């Protein structure tokens, strides 16, 4: 199983994501932002960081990177795509996920561990988790305040597309949303960093389930 990790200029969790993918038992594949294809990846992660410095708006410039063309096709064909933190922001900017991530309500960057609840286990990125399971995951962001208009929020709830919800909301997100999925459920975006919680030495393995999910999903 090959999991592609996209490197935009300014990504800074790309290597962390690759190490975690390896720990989860898959083969990480580097995808350079200027690549024209996904090198045969079975799933793709857009990692955290500050693509293009987060200048203008986080994700605003990265969504136009060359690799995003094949990625959008892959996503539309049902390929599993996970956006973590800045990756989530990129997916929203690219309209692969609804909504937008505004500046944290507290106006500050926030780096801490928060408890979240897995709301749905029927996505390729949460299949190995239990529905309702509580995880402690690190967040580290300045723009993680999830926003969508009321109609979109209602639809997300109705269609069961809120994938992760904060039990302690660190940023003012609407409906405590920490992660959502696309209509077809294959594209997931989340602000918490599962790759930072994938080694007991770092104090938590709660994120490993998310990274392992995709293995289970594709093998099935």
């Amino acid at each position, binding site marked *: 199983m090959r999991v592609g990790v996209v490197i935009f200029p300014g990504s*800074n969790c790309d*290597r*962390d994501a690759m*190490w975690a993918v390896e720990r989860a038992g898959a083969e990480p594949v580097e995808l350079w932002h200027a690549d024209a294809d996904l090198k045969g990846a079975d799933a793709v992660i857009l990692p955290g960081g*500050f693509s293009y410095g987060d*200048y203008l708006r986080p994700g605003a410039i990265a969504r136009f990177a060359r690799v995003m063309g094949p990625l959008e096709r892959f996503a539309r064909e049902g390929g599993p795509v996970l956006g973590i933190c800045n990756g989530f922001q990129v997916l929203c900017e690219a309209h692969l996920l609804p909504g937008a991530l505004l500046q944290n309500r507290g106006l500050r*960057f926030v780096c801490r561990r928060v408890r979240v609840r897995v709301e749905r286990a029927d996505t390729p990125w949460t299949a190995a988790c239990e529905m309702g399971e509580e995880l402690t995951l690190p967040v*580290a962001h300045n723009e993680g305040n999830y926003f969508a208009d009321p109609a979109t929020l209602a639809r997300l709830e109705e269609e069961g597309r809120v994938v992760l919800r904060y039990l302690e909301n660190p940023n003012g997100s609407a409906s405590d949303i920490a992660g959502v999925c696309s209509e077809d459920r294959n594209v997931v975006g989340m602000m918490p960093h599962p790759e*930072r919680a994938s080694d007991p030495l770092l104090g938590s393995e709660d994120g490993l389930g998310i990274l392992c999910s995709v293995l289970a999903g594709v093998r099935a």
Partner: protein
Amino acid sequence: MSVRETYGALGLSDREYERILKLLGRAPNFLELSLFSVMWSEHCGYKNSRPLLGRFPNEGPRVLQGPGENAGVVEAGDGWALAFKIESHNHPSAVEPYEGAATGVGGIIRDILAMGARPVALLDSLRFGPLDEERNRYLFREVVRGIGGYGNAVGVPTVGGEVEFAPAYSGNPLVNAMCVGLVRVEDLVRSRASGVGNLVMLLGSRTGRDGIHGATFASDELTGESESRRSNVQVGDPFAEKMLIECCLELLEEDLLVSLQDLGAAGITSSASEMAAKGKVGIEIETDRVPLREEGMEPVEIMLSESQERMLAVVEPQKAERVRKLARRYGVGAAVIGRVADHGELRVVHGGEVVGSVPAEHLADAPLYEREVVRPAYLDGARRLDLAAVPPPRDYGTALLRLLSHPSLRSRRSVYEQYDHEVGTCTVVRPGADAAVMRIRGTNRGYAITTDGRGRHCYLDPRGGGAATVAEAYRNLSCVGAEPVALTNCLNFGSPEKPEGYYQLAECIEGMAGACEALGTPVVSGNVSLYNETERGAVYPTPVVGMVGLLEDVRRHATPEIKREGDALVLVGR
């Protein structure tokens, strides 16, 4: 302007000017005078502190590189080495706190990068005046934002540090940033230029009129006027730095560079002259080949610009094209701006003509000032405290609460939560403990890092305080289970030209050096920030120690939390 006014305005004394005349055997032109002025500033030349710094022990079984390079390096086991250094950005932060702190972080990261190491951890040691003053609150808030803004974006975790408040720092905050990098022992790079005919390439951002004479500025007292010296302000671009880091590391991996040096204070001038002096060669810089951000810059401005996010590299001519190509992949500028020559001079060429040329070794060899060490009178009064005369508190509970709510004792969570302390997924013990513990991936090894300073103690007892600072860092590392190995330090003091200032400096160094010898922790790098004075006086003498220790098995570390109800508390020590 007369000659005397000119060199005076550049911060050179009569004696220094005479020395330049003697060294050159002729009168320097304005450009040459400017080169001397920045290189002989305290900031670059250490003219007041160098004689004292010799007191520090700097050898040890694990030391691979002591003072004299961009950072100190110790061996960490399994073929790994740690490069580390701490540096101040006090004056720029006093004037423009966000950018001052941000560019301080950017600068220290490039020092580590220049050793060929990947920057993997940051720490920040901060001092501010009391928070009941609006300006101090503003400085505190913006400095912390600036450190986070840069460190978070560049992807190096800020894993520790300290913050303290005291009136002595009002209007003159201390902003010290430390960076640690990891490098394979065999991949260590040095800054020495070599190979006559090799090319000198400038990597990174374009050059603008940023911070011209910043180095002389940093060696000056802060006055109301400083705030309006706008050309001193540099703006950081962490995105450019991130690309520069990845680019330089790959250039080194591909073996495309002969040597590498960061550009900091005094820009191309200090980098090129240091590279030349260390390699005992000359360097010619063609200022018209430097990519500029602004039109109409004079050679002197180009030579002194402190534009951020730049590195200088020596490259063999046949490799230049590959360097350019690789840099393009990262969107990093790479321009040949000169070459290594055999004449031993730093030579500036503009429009095909030599517009200045001085021996690099003289630029690197600032005059040294040994001043008389006079014990200041304040010490007698300051140290008279009769503990018996302090009444016991009426209610110990209230007294304890008051203590705990003091800004210098309160939880630091609101500060370190603004820093990404986990990026890189190597942070084993996060901020909030006595020291941060980091793992070395692919091994069982780890290392611990702490920064400590004791300004008030050093004010009251410079020698004892200096020793206690080193001891505190040593204890903090021991507390997490690490074996302390070596340290870096930043000496934040007032003016050495005043007897109190020089005494404090000399005595603190004496105390620190003694403790280093006793504890077996050599000093492998450091930085000096003098002239931390405002109209209200000097800051407390505040040497800050950044110490690094090793853990053979990183899983066996300790954390301060009380783990279980019923466990015994034991007080160890005297």
